């Protein structure tokens, strides 16, 4: 990532589109496919402008046939192309999950590495705006659990651009999960801290490296995507009380930067994991197990989870807000650890 300062701020949506455009300019094998990604520029703006520049052969709207076009992305990738394919909401994975987890994700292995499968599957995640139970899920754990796909999710526009470029250049399937509440679409509400300076030139952010986004010494808050911003806000609140929280942005679930997690907890002795995906059998359990299986004595008190409870996502605002992670819950989790 270039070091020189950039002052041009982008939303994640624009950063994604820019990364794709830059790769498309230098590599004609790259193309984009999905629902409403051409004339509309993507429901969440991440393909805006691409149709005008690259035309409808390389920016292809599809029918509502996810099984066919996810499979097609795999077939095209195995034939030498580098497709970027969109699943509009991650919630829709159920109509095409075989094409993803059993085919796209496994053909590198089934071929003993003789086929490359350079697909980027980009998909929106997250709730908070009352889109109810089939349009608000994160499903981070569902993808990260199954082998053969890398899984990334940026918390800000700079990482979004760098991770997208890295994903397009990767010879493996990469699932790029962008959180709607960070996307920078005005109508969706936006976390302002996700809109950051982004270098104009091409760069990659390595997949599998976490980032310490705030240093601290008393407690480690681990999260990804929206969870990072909750963590940062909680760290502010804790700082007012004299508690120094370190915030770790995972950026990637597969590969998972276990060293970074362990190093931070080794320093702080306390762990809170934040996740907007369903709590059980998911991200929070994995992070906690990673620490304690390494060395249970690292933890001075019981680790805490601030995750989505194990119920479908309700529509009604007070119900949904009750379930979502937020900074106050993280602070309460800190307090629950006892000191």
């Amino acid at each position, binding site marked *: 990532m270039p070091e020189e300062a950039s002052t041009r701020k982008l939303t994640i949506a624009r950063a994604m589109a820019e990364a794709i455009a830059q790769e498309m300019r230098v590599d004609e094998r790259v193309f984009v496919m999905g*629902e*409403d990604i*051409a*004339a*509309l520029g993507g*429901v969440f703006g991440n393909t805006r402008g691409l149709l005008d520049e690259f035309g409808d052969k390389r920016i292809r*709207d*599809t*029918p*509502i*046939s*996810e*099984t*066919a076009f996810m499979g097609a992305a795999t077939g095209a990738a195995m034939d030498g192309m580098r497709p970027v394919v969109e699943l509009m909401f991650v*919630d*829709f994975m*159920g*109509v095409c999950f075989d094409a993803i987890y059993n085919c796209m994700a496994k053909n590198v292995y089934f071929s003993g590495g003789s086929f490359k499968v350079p697909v980027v599957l980009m998909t929106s995640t997250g709730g*908070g*705006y*009352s*889109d*109810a*139970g*089939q*349009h608000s899920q994160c499903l981070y754990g569902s993808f990260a659990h199954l082998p053969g796909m890398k899984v990334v999710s940026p918390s800000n526009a700079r990482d979004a651009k760098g991770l997208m470029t890295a994903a397009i250049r990767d010879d493996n399937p990469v699932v790029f999960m962008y959180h709607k509440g960070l996307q920078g679409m*005005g*109508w*969706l*509400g936006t976390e302002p801290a996700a809109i950051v300076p982004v270098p104009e030139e091409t760069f990659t952010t390595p997949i599998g490296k976490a980032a310490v986004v705030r240093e601290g010494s008393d407690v480690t808050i681990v999260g990804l995507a929206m969870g990072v911003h909750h963590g940062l806000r909680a760290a502010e609140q804790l700082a007012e009380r004299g508690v120094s929280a370190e915030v770790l942005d995972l950026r990637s679930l597969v590969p998972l930067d276990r060293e970074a997690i362990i190093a931070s907890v080794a320093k702080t002795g306390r762990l809170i994991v934040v996740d907007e995906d369903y709590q059980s059998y998911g991200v929070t359990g994995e992070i906690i197990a990673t620490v304690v299986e390494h060395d249970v004595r690292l933890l001075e008190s019981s680790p805490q989870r601030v995750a989505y*409870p*194990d*119920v*479908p996502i*309700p*529509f*009604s*605002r*007070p*119900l*949904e*807000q*009750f*379930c979502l992670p937020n900074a106050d819950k993280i602070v309460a989790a800190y307090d629950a650890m006892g000191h």
Partner: protein
Amino acid sequence: MQPGRAEKRWMYETMLLSRRYEEAIEKIYLEGKQPRFDMAAGPIPGEMHLSNGQEPCAVGVIAHLEAHDTVTATHRPHHQAIAKGVDLKEMTAEIFGKKAGLSGGRGGHMHLLDPRVNFVCSGIIAQGLGPALGAALSRTMQGKPGVAVAFIGEGAVNQGAFHETMNLAALWNLPLIVVVEDNAWGISVSKKDSTAVERNHVRAAAYGIPGHFVPDNDPIAIYDVAGEAIARARRGEGPTLIEIETDRLAGHFMGDAEQYRPEGEKDALFARDPIPRLRDQMLAAGELSAEDVASIDAAVARRIDEAVAFARESPYPEPSDALEHAFHPVT
């Protein structure tokens, strides 16, 4: 099969109720969302898919159904829900996310489920087809009366679930009617950019079942074709595919600027709005009087006012109610 005067009047009233209802919802939806449109704000947050223009599909088909017949609908369900007799107050409270809503605010406008009139809908394209098939199977197995109708959009026809369901319905000769509301668009993708055939009803041939096309968004013609299909299903003669040419008068969802629409397309749609068309037809045929029109207007307005007032006054659920009803208790 021609509707009698009462059916026709019911169709007109129900179309009007649905239209005026959505106009009310539209206004309320924008509360708190101006000047800046923020989907999360206002008394009705989240996505809002209006069905205005598509009312003929709902009434022409559902005129033939009883409460015990099953309907599965889509992300754009208001017109069908209203025609099927879902309680308007509880439906409205649900759309507001209130405790008195159909599911206590858990579902919202894409998840209106009412066992009293066997109505369900969902936010995943083509998801309702399998459950409709299952309801049809259940009726056959139980030897109980009842058919199932699955409403889908023309975009949904290209989803694998369509094919699997049609084959099974035909194979098992089930009382299932699949109704395609062809409004020519799936969000911003036009039918010609998504569908290899010009008309979807020809796809019935892949299952050896009847397929019908009803042009021109005409509730009377829909009534006719649906009536035959439903009667056929009730006689145990199996499924039918019905494709209806209809119009989406609003954007895909509220907030959609529809810049992908060709110039002038929307004007043409408004010019053939089916509700004034039916009204004028019935007036001309003496099936409605000016007074009837006025009293229907008034009755519709009253029902909507009541439903909206009910929804507004209903309290929000307790936040922690979110954790209830993921599972039924074991008895």
